[in-house]
């Protein structure tokens, strides 16, 4: 049977349901977010793992100069190797009717049917190419969808300098290209990059290696050491006279991109709910303090009746625990349901051939425990205070506050006695005002901490693609060429300015730390691709010096003047001093003077691409020239890159952040409403007395509005600061090699955050005004005596 104190507890909770609901909502938001985030992550993670397993996704990869197939057999025989795919891989360009620009493609030879599956394709449409039809290909489903292509469509391609017309037999997904990143791309763009799978023999003929292969994908036997097998393969390839860099999945572009996306989701999916939970704990703590204060007489009588301190303390801990249970009951199903929705949205972006959705039961159990523990922690001090309250004192009214006059009273007096009373109330109950202000500040802060992501995205686009990159388009050459070749491009119709660039994969090492990055050579007097210092001002690239992006400098622990050792794929390693640290929100960057870098190459100076500015009226002619040129492997107009970047962000981080923003708005309303309700219940008796003394309804409401208005007005700037602080923590958590998210809060975010809290305050106050109008003065006075 339920005990009397428990019965009291349940009825008290029912009486305080308004403010209790606010706290429950904030905690439920945290619970729902945790369950949602973990369920999304778990589902995506398990789907990926199962996809990798079913398709035999390779563990090691290597690009190498054309090598005989016997070398692949040697690799196959190495201990720890389960399967090997010796493939032919190369660039190509697609010319599509109705698309002005050339589209970069990566051609990959189809796996042999009889071999154990490595990177097996999952057909979405059509069939695999017929053995006797070398002109048939399979293309990646993303590109097919972006251009409305399907089985039977014809594809005009330039492969190895020759034009060919191919027929699409089917569209497919590959674990190797969950995200397909084209040359020079940092985010996927289905419209501008395609994967084309073709029969091995036909492709080898077209690209030139003949009976040889130039790309290796290796699947390891269970328990094999990735590092040991890598070394063994490296030794075999070196003995064959070739050079290669065998790498594991961490450097496989698609895997690395998926991994970084999941990592970001994981980081933000833990951090933001944790912040919500901390706010909920604060709110619960503040509310429990107020409940204990309101129930002083009841605490007194309970003790006078012989209940011990521990029983009284436990009573208030139970109070908080019931709220936590209610939050779990509300939040967990919402989290599970939202997880399903969000996972489905992500599934459309992460190209998996199937999807496993399941709620993360461990997260569900964890969140229930964490909410319970958080509730106990929040209630501990108020409960201890209730337990320690001597019964004789508990039954006395709270100690009257000192009757000192408050500074500013004289000015307020001119506004009338109610204004003076508001001022005195504020000055004499500073802790209460502080708690109200802090609660409202958290309501503002939570929103800013989630809304700022959109401002940050705008800032990234503005800085990276606005201030730093000023070209109209970037061209990636099919193969590096001497800088003199740029002169030809300069003469193409519509080209105003051409600046060469050289992108080389390089290993940068300093004091035992090393990182493989793209080292970019830029012309000394270049104006199109600019480097920005950490204050976002343009910096010139010193001759013979190295500029590192801020994040890369951190990874290498490099400071200005440090000599970094650079190891290129060919040529001798060389040392270059760090001359500048530059800000770059996207990717890791290392930059050198183009001429200096060129002088280090065995082949002499080269350019691997160019930045161009174009005249508007000649753009169509330029694109025709581009399509006709066999020099070009990739073409990226800056506007298209910005669109692709925004789309990528809007389909990854933004989805979950949008859910968080919605939660923050709900939480803001809940926090403000709970705060208004607590304030009203504390003041109801005093307000009734004032009514009895002849103060009108409007005067009473003025006083209530004055107190709340003061707290909310104070909360807005404080909340902005809280939001910045929380945002900083999120930024630190989100920082990875792919994106460095800046902490920027635009006026729109401030306005939305402040507007939501003000709207919540006005709505809650309107509801409170109804209660003030219904005050039973006689009953309140009788209770007061």
């Amino acid at each position, binding site marked *: 049977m339920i005990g*009397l104190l428990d019965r009291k507890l349940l009825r008290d909770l029912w009486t305080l349901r308004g403010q209790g609901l606010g706290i429950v909502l904030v905690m439920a938001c945290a619970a729902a977010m945790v369950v949602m985030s973990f369920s999304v992550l778990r589902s995506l993670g398990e789907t990926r793992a199962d996809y990798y397993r079913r398709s035999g996704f390779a563990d090691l990869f290597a690009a190498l100069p054309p090598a005989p197939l016997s070398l692949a057999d040697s690799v196959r025989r190495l201990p720890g190797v389960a399967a090997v795919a010796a493939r032919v891989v190369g660039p190509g360009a697609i010319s599509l009717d109705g698309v002005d620009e050339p589209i970069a493609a990566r051609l990959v030879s189809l796996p042999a049917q009889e071999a154990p599956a490595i990177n097996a394709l999952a057909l979405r449409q059509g069939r695999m190419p017929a053995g006797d039809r070398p002109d048939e290909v399979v293309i990646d489903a993303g590109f097919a969808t972006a251009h409305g292509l399907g089985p039977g469509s014809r594809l005009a391609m330039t492969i190895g300098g020759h034009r060919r017309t191919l027929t699409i037999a089917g569209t497919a997904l590959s674990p190797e290209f969950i995200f397909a990143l084209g040359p020079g791309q940092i985010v996927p763009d289905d419209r501008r990059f395609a994967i084309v799978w073709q029969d091995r023999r036909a492709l080898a003929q077209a690209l030139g290696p003949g009976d040889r292969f130039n790309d290796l994908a290796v699947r390891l036997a269970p328990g094999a050491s990735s590092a040991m097998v890598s070394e063994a393969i490296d030794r075999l390839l070196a003995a064959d006279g070739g050079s290669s860099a065998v790498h594991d999945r961490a450097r496989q572009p698609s895997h690395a991109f998926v991994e970084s996306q999941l990592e970001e989701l994981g980081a933000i999916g833990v951090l933001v709910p944790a912040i919500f939970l901390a706010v909920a704990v604060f709110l619960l703590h503040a509310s429990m303090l107020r409940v204990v204060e309101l129930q002083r007489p009841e605490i007194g009588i309970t*003790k*006078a*009746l*012989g209940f011990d301190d521990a029983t009284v303390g436990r009573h208030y801990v139970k109070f908080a625990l019931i709220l936590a249970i209610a939050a779990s009951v509300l939040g967990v199903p919402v989290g599970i349901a939202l997880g399903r929705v969000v996972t489905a949205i992500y599934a459309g972006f992460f190209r998996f051939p199937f999807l496993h959705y399941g709620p993360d039961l461990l997260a569900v159990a964890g969140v229930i425990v964490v909410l319970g523990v958080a509730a106990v922690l929040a209630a501990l001090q108020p409960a201890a205070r209730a337990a320690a309250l001597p*019964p004789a004192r508990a039954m006395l009214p709270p100690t009257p506050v000192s009757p000192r006059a408050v500074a500013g009273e004289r000015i307020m007096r001119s506004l009338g006695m109610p204004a003076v009373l508001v001022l005195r109330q504020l000055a004499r109950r500073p802790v209460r005002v502080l708690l109200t202000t802090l609660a409202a500040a958290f309501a503002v802060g939570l929103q800013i901490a989630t809304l700022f992501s959109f401002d940050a995205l705008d800032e990234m686009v503005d800085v990276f693609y606005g201030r730093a990159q000023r070209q109209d388009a970037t061209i990636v050459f099919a193969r590096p060429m001497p800088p003199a070749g740029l002169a030809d491009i300069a003469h193409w119709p519509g080209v105003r300015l051409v600046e060469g660039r050289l992108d080389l994969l390089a290993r940068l090492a300093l004091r035992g730390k090393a990182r493989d990055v793209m080292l970019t050579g830029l012309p000394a007097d270049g104006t199109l691709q600019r480097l920005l210092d950490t204050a976002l001002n343009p910096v010139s690239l010193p001759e013979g010096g190295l500029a590192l992006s801020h994040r890369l400098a951190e990874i290498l622990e490099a400071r200005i003047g440090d000599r970094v050792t650079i190891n290129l794929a060919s040529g001798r390693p060389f040392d270059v001093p760090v001359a500048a640290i530059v800000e770059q929100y996207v990717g890791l960057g290392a930059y050198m003077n183009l001429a200096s870098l060129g002088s280090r190459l065995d082949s002499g100076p080269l350019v691997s691409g160019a930045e161009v500015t174009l005249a508007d009226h000649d753009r169509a002619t330029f694109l025709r020239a581009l399509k006709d040129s066999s020099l070009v492997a990739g073409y990226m107009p800056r506007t298209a890159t910005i669109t692709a970047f925004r789309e990528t962000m809007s389909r990854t981080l933004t989805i979950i952040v949008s859910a968080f923003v919605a939660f923050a708005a709900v939480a803001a309303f809940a926090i403000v409403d709970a705060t208004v309700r607590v304030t009203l219940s504390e003041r109801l008796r005093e307000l009734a007395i004032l009514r009895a003394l002849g103060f009108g309804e409007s005067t009473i409401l003025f006083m209530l509005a004055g107190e709340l208005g003061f707290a909310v007005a104070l909360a807005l700037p404080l909340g902005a600061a809280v939001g910045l602080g929380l945002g900083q923590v999120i930024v630190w958590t989100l920082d990875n090699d792919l994106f460095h998210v800046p902490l920027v809060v635009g006026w729109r975010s401030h306005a939305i955050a402040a507007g939501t809290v003000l709207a919540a305050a006005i709505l809650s106050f309107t509801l409170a005004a109804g209660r003030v109008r219904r005050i039973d003065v006689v009953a309140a006075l009788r209770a007061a005596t």
Partner: protein
Amino acid sequence: MSEGERAVLTARGLAKSYDSAAGRVVALRGVDFDLARGEFVVLLGPSGSGKSTLLNLLGGLDRASEGRLLFGDIDLAALDERALTLYRRHHVGFVFQAYNLIASLTAAENVALGAMGVERALSAAEALAHVGLADLADRFPAQLSGGEQQRVAVARAIVRQPDLLLCDEPTGALDSATGVVVLEALDRVNRDFATAAVVVTHNAVIAGMADRVVHLADGAIVRSYRNQARAPARDLAW
């Protein structure tokens, strides 16, 4: 108290002082006080004379700064918090001016709360019947008049059949007619259960129903006398 009567409570040199914002306040200074089983004592005195402080000390709600306070042979000053809690639970019933009912419990539940953990307790219905409220058992405090609430408080105090019934201004918030009904309930409990009762009041009329009247002023007993006969509560009016 005659020699044959056994004292329920014996206080010697009882003093209480505490610190406040205005400095050290001496609420009670060296009070000697005895209470016999079944005795009805009224404590009179102006505000701040120390009546409520003495009552709180007698009931174990507060601790004396100096002096001895014996409940039978037990020195209350030597008891720890836990033992003091048990003393209140098993031996003391309180009635306060502000009723102090739990708003979220019904009349019967409020009374039952007073019976929890006490083996010899009456049922809540019996206790309520004793104060004439058997019919209102299921009402919440907000649904009762002031007098009814105070009678529920009396029922809650007596449900455990305490040795001591301590009442702090039990009629202070009530009109004369309602106050008399409450006093009748106290009188009945005192007589029926032979419970020693101490009633703090500044209403001198109530002194008529006491066995003994004790006057306090400035934290000390200034006068004490016995009534020749206890006036029936129903004859009181103010």
